[in-house]
């Protein structure tokens, strides 16, 4: 029997340069795109900082995560989701982000997550 296609969500929860997990999560997200998976991205908590525009990671010898994320081959722009409460707590708005994203309010978070088959939490 053919398995139905799994709905997958990558949850990016780390600041971009504080740990190697952030980069691993971005690599995984790009691979999901390359393998044409049914996959959305959710930037949660400190993870929203990965999307901050104006990053110059070259200064610390790292790959620019903001630039990598901006270049995500996104055909469905609605598939990038951002934790609205975290964004507010940092004093940021969607205008500060490298790409267009849909805000998810805390009250909607549980229902959103329960709609996926697999949750990759990095």
């Amino acid at each position, binding site marked *: 029997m053919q398995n139905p296609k799994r709905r997958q969500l990558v949850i990016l929860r780390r600041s971009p340069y504080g740990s190697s997990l952030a980069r691993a999560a971005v690599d995984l997200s790009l691979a999901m795109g390359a393998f044409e998976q049914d996959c959305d991205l959710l930037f949660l908590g400190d993870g929203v900082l990965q999307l901050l525009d104006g990053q110059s990671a070259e200064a610390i010898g790292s790959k620019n995560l903001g630039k990598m994320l901006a270049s995500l081959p996104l055909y469905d722009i609605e598939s990038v989701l951002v934790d609205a409460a975290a964004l507010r707590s940092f004093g940021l708005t969607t205008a500060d982000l490298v790409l267009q994203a849909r805000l998810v309010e805390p009250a909607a978070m549980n229902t959103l*997550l329960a709609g996926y088959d697999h949750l990759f939490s990095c």
Partner: protein
Amino acid sequence: MILHTLNASPGSTAFRDCLATAGAADTILLLGDGVYAALPGSEAEQALLACPARLRVLEIDARAAGLLQRLADSILIDMDGFVALSETHPRQLAWY
């Protein structure tokens, strides 16, 4: 229905975000450094009691941490119980 596995100390953002996210149909399984949140009378326990999700604690980690005699038997599960929870919850979310 989500199985939240919480392996983070009660002071962490992972702990806070897990509790903010968990719903009434969910279960929170404390493991690793997460087990300390079950300490009776602690601030973290109060926060867990206010959360609508069901609470379980991984016995082996509670034992290692010295919590076994401080927790109610009814919330403790072994590794077999962890797998059983993953069977009844279609998705798991790791907080660490």
